[in-house]
C-alpha cells in the first residue's frame, strides 16, 4: 500500500471506501448490542440460570413498590420492625403499613422516628396522611406497640420510579431520659 502512487482523487476515493466500511461496522455493533438481549435469554435458559420471572409480577397491580427500612440510632434500647417489609401501590391510591415498636429497657422511653426516602425525589410523590413519625412517642417500660403509616400516592407518580424505599430511624428525645 504505497499511497504515493495514488493520485489525490484516487486517494480520496479509497479513503471514502474505508470510511463507509467502518461506518457500517459501527452501525452493525449497535445491532450487536441489541442482539445480546435474545442471546442472553437463550444462554440463561440453556444454562438453567434463574431469571427474573415476569409471571410472578403483576405489571398492572404493582405500578409501584414501597419497601420499608428501619434503623435505630446507636445505643437506643428500642426495636422497630416493619410487619410487611414490601407493599404495592399505584398512582392515586393509598398505601398502608404497620410497624411494631418495642421498648427493650426497663424504663420509660421517649423517642421519635425520622423518615427519609430513596430515591430522594420519591418524597414529592408520597404524602403521609397519617404517620407515627408526626409526634414524639413515649413507651412504657417493656411496652410493645403497633404503629401505622398511611401514604397517599400522587396521581403524577412517574412510572419509572418502580421501587421506593421509605426508611425510618429512631432517635431518643432530647429532653427526656
Amino acid at each position: 500500500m504505497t499511497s504515493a502512487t495514488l493520485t489525490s482523487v484516487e486517494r480520496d476515493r479509497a479513503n471514502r471506501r474505508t470510511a463507509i466500511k467502518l461506518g457500517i461496522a459501527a452501525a452493525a455493533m449497535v445491532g450487536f448490542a441489541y442482539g445480546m438481549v435474545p442471546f442472553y435469554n437463550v444462554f440463561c435458559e440453556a444454562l438453567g440460570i434463574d431469571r427474573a420471572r415476569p409471571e410472578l409480577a403483576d405489571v398492572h397491580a404493582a405500578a409501584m413498590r414501597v419497601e420499608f427500612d428501619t434503623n435505630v440510632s446507636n445505643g437506643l434500647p428500642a426495636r422497630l420492625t416493619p410487619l410487611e417489609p414490601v407493599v404495592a401501590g399505584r398512582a392515586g391510591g393509598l398505601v398502608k403499613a404497620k410497624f411494631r415498636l418495642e421498648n427493650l429497657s426497663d424504663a420509660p422511653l421517649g423517642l421519635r422516628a425520622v423518615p427519609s426516602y430513596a430515591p430522594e425525589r420519591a418524597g414529592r410523590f408520597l404524602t403521609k396522611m397519617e404517620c407515627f413519625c408526626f409526634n414524639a412517642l413515649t413507651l412504657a417500660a417493656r411496652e410493645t406497640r403497633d404503629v401505622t403509616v398511611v401514604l397517599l400516592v400522587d396521581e403524577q407518580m412517574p412510572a419509572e420510579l418502580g421501587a421506593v424505599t421509605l426508611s425510618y430511624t429512631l432517635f431518643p428525645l432530647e429532653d427526656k431520659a
Partner: protein
Amino acid sequence: MTAATDTLNPTQGDHAGEAHGHDDHGHHAATGWRRWVYATNHKDIGTLYLWFSFSMFILGGTMALGIRAELFTPGLQFWQPEFFNQLTTLHGIIMVFGAIMPAFTGLANWMLPLMLGAPDMAFARMNNWSFWLLPPSALLLVISLFVPGGAAAGGWTLYPPLSLQFGMGMDLAIFSVHLLGLSSIMGSINIIVTILNMRSPGMTLMKMPMFAWTSLVTAYLLIAVAPVLAGAVTMLLTDRHFGTHFFKAVGGGDPVLFQHIFWFFGHPEVYIMALPAFGIVSQIIPTFARKPLFGYHSMVYATASIAILSFMVWAHHMFSVGMPATAQLFFMFMTMLIAVPTGVKVFNWIATMWQGAMSFETPMLFAVGFVCLFTVGGFSGLVLSIAPVDTQMHDTYYVVAHFHYVLVAGALFSLFGAVYYWLPKWTGYMYSEKMGKFHFWWSMVWFNVTFFPMHFLGLAGMPRRIPDYPLQFTDFNALASVGAFCFGLGQLFFLYNVIHTIRGGVGKAPANPWEGAHTLEWEVPSPAPHHTWETPPSQELVEKGLKEQAL
C-alpha cells in the same frame, strides 16, 4: 538542525493548486474565533481537543476534590448524600469521556499526520464535527446538575434499576453519552483511514511509530464498542420512557443484562484509555534511552492481543452477580491471560532502557513513572481478577485504588509526558526543565499519598461511593484527602508551566530538541507550520529515520 527540513515545501501560500478536496475552504485566512469554530486543520483541531480535555480535567478534578473534602472526616460536612453521589458519577463520566479520551484523540490529531508524513487527517470536515460535538455533551452534563432531582447519581456505570428511577438528569446523561459516542466513532474513522491510507512512501504498517499502532488499534476498539454503549443507554432510555422492558424485572427484563452489555463496552474502554498511553511511552523511552525500542514486533503483537482479549473478559466486573462457577473460571483465566501481553510490554520498555544512555528530562520521568505505577495498577488488577478475592473486594476502595493507578498514574501521566515531549514542536519554545521536573515529582509524591492508602481502606472493607464511613477509616481517609488537594494544586502549576512555554518558555526550540528522537515529526521546523508534508517526505528521509529506529 537537520537537512531534512528543506524537503518541506516552503511555498505554503499557494497550495490551492493541489486539489486535496477537503482543506481548502478558506480556513487559511480565518482568524479569531472563526479559525477555531471552522477549524479543519489537524493541528488546530488537536489543539482544541487538548484544551477541551484539560478544562474537563479541571472540572472533573474539582468534583474529585468535592468528594475528598467530604471524606476528610467521618460524618456529613459539606454535601447531602444525594449530591455526593452526583459528584462521584459526574467525576467518573467527565474524567473518562471528557478528559482522558479526548486528550488521546487530540494527540492523535496533532501528531499522526506529522509522524506518518501525511498533509492532514483524511476527513478534515468530519474532524471538525467530531470535536464540536464534545462541548455540547459536556454542557448537557453540567446542566443536569441544575434540573429537578439533580444529575445522574448511580455511578458512571449507570446500572439499573437505579438509573431507571432517576429524574431527567439521567436523560441528559444519556444524550450526552450519545454525543460522546458519536464523536468517538467519527474521530476513530478518521484515525483509521489516515493511518491506513495516508502514510508516506516507505512507511509500511510494520515500520510506523508505536503511537500510530496503538492509535490504530484503539480506534478499532472504539468503533467496536462505542456503539454498544450507545445501544445500552438507548435501551435505558426506552425502558424509562417508552415502555420497553430490557432491564425492568417487572416486565420480564433483567438488570444484570445491562451489566453484561455495559461491560462488553466497559472493559475494552479500559484499554481505549491504556493503549494510546502505551504508544506514547513507547515513543518517549527509546528517545531518552537513546536506543531503538526493544522488540518492536512483539509490541505490535502484544497490542493486538490485548485488544482481542479485551473482548473476552468483561464479566470480571461482575463476579458478585451470581454467575455459574464455570463462567467465573472462564473470565478469571482470560483476565489473567491479559497479563501476558501486558508483561511483554513492560519487559520491552525495561529492556529498551537496559544499558541505554539514559537521561531524565521531564517526558522521560513521566514515562518511567508510568512504567512503575502502571505496573502497580496491573498487579492490583491481577489480584482483583481472582474471582473469590474479588467477591470480597468488589465495590470497595481497593477497586478505587486499582483503577486510579492505571488511569491517573497510567493514562494521565503518559499524557503529561506527551505534552512535555511535544510541547517544543507545538509552541516552538522549550519548557522549563526545572518546572517540569518539579511538576513530575510533586505529582508522583501526592498521587501515591492520595491513592496508596485506598488499598488499605479497601482491604479493611470500606465501600466505594459512600459519603460517610465508620471511625476506624478516618486516618487513611484524611491522608488521602490531603494528598488529593496537593495533587490538584500541582496541576495548576502544570497549567502555569504550559502557558509559560507558549509565551516563550526558556528559549526557542530547535526542530529536534531531543538527541534520540528519529520519527518524522522532528523533521519539520518548530513550531510546526500550519501546513506540513504537503508533499510527502522523500523515501530516503523516511528510511533514514527508520534505520535509526532499527526498523
